[in-house]
């Protein structure tokens, strides 16, 4: 089915709505916190394993690869993660 001008407009509108919700959610998240970077002696919580990003390298990679194979495309987590021709 070829995309009609009307469905193209609807497509664009829905993309705009999705992005609007996204930006709003992020703004709420940022607004809800206190910005007071920790002193050296206040970093105990930040040092815990649960506070790390991608603490387990193999787990993070497996997760990203499953999603990359089942959804249109991936990105955001790192570079060099592409390489397959099969989207």
């Amino acid at each position: 089915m070829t995309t009609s001008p009307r469905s193209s407009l609807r497509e664009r509108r829905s993309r705009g709505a999705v992005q609007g919700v996204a930006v709003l959610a992020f703004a709420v998240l940022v607004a809800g916190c206190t910005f007071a970077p920790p002193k050296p002696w206040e970093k105990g919580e930040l040092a815990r394993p649960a506070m790390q990003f991608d603490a387990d390298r193999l787990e993070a990679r497996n997760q990203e690869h499953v999603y990359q194979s089942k959804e249109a495309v991936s990105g955001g987590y790192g570079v060099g993660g592409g390489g397959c021709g099969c989207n």
Partner: protein
Amino acid sequence: MAATDRGSVRALMAAALALPGIAPPASAQTMPDEGVVSLRYLDYRDWQPGADRMRVESPSFYVMKPFGGSWVAEGSVVYDAMSGASPRYFNTLSGASVTEYRTAADAKLTKYFDRYAIGVGGVVSSERDYLSRGGGFDARWWTEDRNTTVAFSFAGTADTINPVNEVVVDAKKHTLDFLVGITQAINPNAIVQSNVTYSQGHGYYSDPYKLLDTRPDRRRVLAWLTRWNQAVPSVDGTLKLAFRLLDDSFGSTSVMAGAEWAQALPYGFTVTPGLRYYTQSAADFYRNPPFPTGYVPGEYYTADTRLSAFGAFTGSLKVAKSFADGWSADLRVDLYRQRASWRLGGDGSPGLETFSARWIQAGVSKTF
């Protein structure tokens, strides 16, 4: 069995298990003071109503070791075995079940200085019809109080594709990836990381095993990922949020939002339930069923449901335990479901089956 059946398995194999990342965005401002060795096993299955599709068994191995006071070497190897049937268009599966294999390895060397670190790495992935090689560079700078880290990464990848059905021979694809990211400690209980990645590639993007599949030979992907980790010391838990916006020059945009709660428990246990939502619009050249409606010779066309419009939810649960002497082990289960009607902000692509997957991971690590 037909060559195309075997081929479609290969295509999916390559898709399901793409290359290991060359230069992941590290948030650590300090050099690790001990090494780690990890073993992990992934068991993946997916299905649609009335038909099992693919199964993947994938063991992987990772080792990281600091040495010489300011260097860190790390590397990993992954081996994949895939079997089953994959769609040739929409939800129409190839008939035969076959097994295919892939091996990939990567290595990285990082040098730490007082206020910055630089790293170089390489990766290779090989299977019968697909060879990929890549190299990357990354640099990180941090402030004196080590509360802010800025990261920059760059990688190039060169692929050669030789599908068994010979619709192309020695087809090439070249990709350049860039990342700029910032990691900021917000307060003693919160840290945020925000990355922008840009990927630009040219070459053979079509799926040689999907009927009539004809995709543009250039692709640009812009993604913005923000993650927030919030410690809640009063209950010994951590809230981990992730949010991503992505724009693909194929015409698809997507939104991903994820949340996990890591609850520490007695005896070294941690239980982490998680929920992820994802939604995407269709690529410009995706056409709805029935196949091959909308196909015009010489124009772009795909009936690959991965490029359709849909929404998806994942529920996950991970149980981890720390032992004495640096040992740890974990078990993780993810359940995934994809439906057109779950698309946010618009109608999903009509006429497609619900797609489901589940994957289980078991891992063990030891610091040394």
